[in-house]
């Protein structure tokens, strides 16, 4: 659990994301992905693979 917590975004990163999300010009980047079940599974799988690859580097960055 400790590692998972460390891998979560910092509050600064979350705030940056929140600021982008509330910019109406960027709405499409935050719109739901609704291209069907299989496409959603593909996205989830891709994110999971990338997250595993990134995890060591992501955990090493200067944080908190």
């Amino acid at each position, binding site marked *: 659990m400790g*590692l*998972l*917590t*460390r*891998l*979560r*975004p910092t*509050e*600064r*990163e*979350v*705030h*940056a*994301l*929140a*600021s982008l*999300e*509330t*910019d*109406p010009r960027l*709405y499409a*980047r*935050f*719109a*739901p*992905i*609704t*291209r*069907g*079940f*299989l*496409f*959603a*599974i593909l*996205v*989830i799988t*891709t*994110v999971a693979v*990338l*997250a595993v690859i*990134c995890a060591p580097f*992501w955990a090493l960055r200067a944080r908190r």
Partner: protein
Amino acid sequence: MSSADLIIVGSGPSSAQAAKAAVGHGLSVTMVDVGHEDTEFARSVPDRPFDELRRTDPDQRRYFLGDSDPEEQHGSKKVGSQLTPPRQFIKRGVDQHLPFESSTFFPLQTLALGGLGAGWGAGTLTFESFELKEAGLSSEELEPYYREVAEDIGISGSTDADTAPMVLTIPNVQAPLENDSNARSILESYQRGKARFHRKGFYLGPSPSAILSEPLRQGSSVRLPNSYHDMDFYSDHQRSVYRPRFTIEELVGHSAFTYRRGLLALSFEERADGVRLLCEDVATKARVAVEGRALALGAGAINSARIALRSLAPMGTKVPLLCNPYNYVACVNLRMLGRPAADRRHSMSQLTGVVTTPGGGEADRTILSFYSYRSLLLFRLAREMPVPPFLGLQLARALQTSFTIVGTHHVDRHGPDKWLRLQKNNEGREVLAGSYRLSRTEGMERRRNLRRVLRCLLALGCWPLSVLAPAPGSSIHYAGTLPVDDDPRVPLRCARSGRLNGTKHVYLVDSAPWTLLPAKGPTFTQMANARRVVAGVARALRG
């Protein structure tokens, strides 16, 4: 100094209903309240659908994110940090005026006009007769008051649903609200396997709510049906979702009603012919006395106890406490994964589930509230994911239309490690302190119930991603601090009439007298009980 027939402390759901009933009984009423209001957002949140605002409003950041420090805005884990910026006023002034210390209990307190009702999720579940009995109430006595409240505030729900005999036992309510795409898909799944779910002791139906599906006249204004704009966490447009301040605003025009804003009730003194309530003017710090023939404490179970302790007991005296243990389960509804969802929706609980406990007491039910995740924005989801924000965002986008939050409330009974007391802190300041720990048996029972909930969710096609156990107090359901006791000699207890033991003129109109807190949201029952208590006060005052 003028003297009212009845002084009412607080302006929350119970106090508002108590005041309306008292005025109806011909009593003169003075309501004492701090009464903070939203002065920033009410006019700045446009009355337009969430998705349209997201696409078009360049000023949306202000009401979706607020102006406060980002760490405070998004980083706080304190109870109440989930409130959206337009609801943050609910917490204003609390640390200063209602100091509370505990390492095990983290209640949400308020000084807002409308009390915690200003941010209420509007669930209006009725207690069943066995729950009322164990709570120290009577179903025969309460039934007519449930109906009065329902007529007054407007309740929508389905009296035909499988859950109706357990959560909505009053007739003639407004038609149920429309469910959104996600909730419809979950309900269809339940309907297909209904017999199997019933064998598991699981029932599901539309949530009964104080949200209008039809217009309702309240005083001189008309409240309108929900517009399904999915902005209910941010604004009270159309006044579709009931807020206690609507009742206060209606009463303010009545000659028998006086609203004294800016006063914090501290303690009371009984006199031969009535009660003297001592208050602090929060602006000037001056002491102010308000006199009346009777006093109704409706400051909520925690703060009614604070006032009673300060008035009647030596420092350090403990009173018991009830608070529903609460979990929420983040799920993916597989039937909606990757599918588009209609924008038309309300933000509150879409469905209510009841899980009965085999071999447990009748009242030992677990109540589930199903919410679809939409208008709380994706960054809140991404922050919980152990991946870089860009990847978290893509995951949140893929899950969004299928994402379901299931709030899970558990029953609560008194226990040795659940209490409140007044004490001095290190700085010599008087604070209310509390403890809330489940017994080993309660903890095991709660975990067992939660496992049953997870099995039911899986059978519905909702795959649990994580189970969160927020800090005790986060259910925002509090009760049982001055419980009913049939022996009138026991101090800091009350009679079934609501009168506080050891007093002649002091009554409790909130949930402080209850001896059980069922897993159902208590607000509707508090309001009905407030009307019942006030009917008794009116009879007593008439002589």
